[in-house]
């Protein structure tokens, strides 16, 4: 249930440049929303289906899934070894002929607190940890101990190259990397995921008109964004003042 790939591939955005207002009601976003929900309403794709098992049985020969499915298939489907592969995300063909495969990804962040008394040391640690050597060492030791199940999907590209991935898979990953888009985290942003899920629910399960559901959701998101920004004394936008 991922709106992001549709959103990014249509050229849409989650928020405006300053991260103050939700941009889910822009025309691009609406188009993305429609495409996504129509898969379920018009094309009757199963709303929920366990891909792993169906892949194994042959019922579903193709699927779009995340990293953990890759691991699952590699380790818990021994009869399939060598018979399947990983490819970049399907995308929308653009005017220049290229295929836009944008999608979000899983991310982790490191933080150093401003009040910390050990800022320099923290920085050194973070630098070391996210560097290629540490990441590679961690990944290979982990895999040596726990097997393929524990393959470390490091964010460090260099380390990734050095870890024992299969060549074809590695190529697929690196190609997709080009299209990777960071998912912006803004203050109050937890509301966005929540309301995207609500929108999906309204449209697909309750039959609401897409535009209506989206506008309702955006209104709520903006309210929360504004509230949080005011709470912390940050600048807020004037344009979303449609609040009743």
């Amino acid at each position, binding site marked *: 249930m991922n709106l992001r790939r549709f959103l990014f591939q249509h050229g849409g955005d989650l928020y405006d440049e300053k991260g103050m207002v939700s941009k889910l009601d822009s025309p691009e976003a609406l188009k993305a929303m429609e495409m996504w929900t129509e898969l379920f309403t018009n094309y009757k794709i199963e709303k929920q289906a366990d891909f792993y*098992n169906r892949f194994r049985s042959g019922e579903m020969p193709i699927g779009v899934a995340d990293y953990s499915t890759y691991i*699952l298939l590699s*380790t*818990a489907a021994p009869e399939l070894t060598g018979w399947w592969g990983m490819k970049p995300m399907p995308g929308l063909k653009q005017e220049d002929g290229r295929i836009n495969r944008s999608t979000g990804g899983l991310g982790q962040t490191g933080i150093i607190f401003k009040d910390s008394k050990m800022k320099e040391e923290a920085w050194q640690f973070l630098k070391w940890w996210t560097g290629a050597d540490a990441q590679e060492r961690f990944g290979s030791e*982990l895999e040596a*101990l*726990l097997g393929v*199940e524990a393959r470390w*999907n490091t964010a460090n590209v260099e380390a990734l190259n050095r870890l024992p991935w299969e060549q074809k898979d590695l190529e697929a990953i690196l190609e997709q990397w080009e299209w990777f888009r960071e998912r912006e985290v803004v203050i109050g942003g937890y509301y966005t995921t929540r309301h995207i899920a609500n929108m999906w629910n309204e449209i697909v399960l309750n039959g609401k008109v897409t535009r209506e559901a989206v506008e309702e959701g955006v209104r709520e998101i903006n309210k929360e964004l504004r509230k949080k920004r005011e709470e912390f004394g940050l600048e807020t936008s004037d344009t979303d003042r449609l609040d009743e």
Partner: protein
Amino acid sequence: MRAAVSRKRTDWGGVFLYIFLTIFGLLMLAPLVYMASTSVKPISELFLFPPRFFPINPTLMNFRDLLLITGTSFVPFSRYIFNSVLITAGIVFFGVVISAMAAYPLAKHEMPFKSTIFNLIVTALMFSSMVLQIPQYLLVSKSGLMNTYFAMILPYLAAPIGIFLMIQFLKQMPDSLIESARIEGASEWTILWKIVFPLLKPAVATFALFSFVQAWNDPYPSMMYTTREELKALPFAIQSISGGAGVIARVGTFAAASFLMVVPTIIVFTITQRMVLQTMAHSGLKE
């Protein structure tokens, strides 16, 4: 003659009773059985959907992994077990002692503020513990108790529900025993331990059971009051096994760990069961 009539009627109802209860009972047990069977599944069967109830190739590999491999990170797995046992034993033992000491006066003595205190305890039962977590944490960290076993035992010693149970049970006890002991000159302290406590045994068993189950399964002390790995206990360790980036890697181990966690509680329940049922008869509220 009357007996013959009722026996016939009982048979008919009895059979139905047994069938119904057995089916229902097995249904209730099913999730537990499922958990047990998951813990012995090899990885090729772990993710089947619909899941199988009984694995085709049961294996003890998950348990082996649990004890050996996960332990090499910071501390051996046995350390978590040791901590859990220590902390739970501490909570149960001292909880029993302190609550018994407090229940006796509240049930049997007259003193000013008695009913105030009692009502306070019952009322405290109703405040949501989620919200109390933050103030409790602040208290522990400001008082310098962080990273000690004390921090994980002390807050849980004065459980309102436990003492409530004991007080109700004690109220049923005849005063005459205590009176005769007083006349013979025994001090309150002696009375408590020589007379009251032995009679309190069923309530103690119940208290021990609830307290044990609570403390054994509780990950919060480890999460909130410790930062050092050597002090953390089982439920927390299990949570960390199941989360994080290596989610796939550890599902089997997680099932094995969960199963291991449940076994002691069932054992304790079995042991205390008879005494527990006895207590419960006296736990009703009297206005």
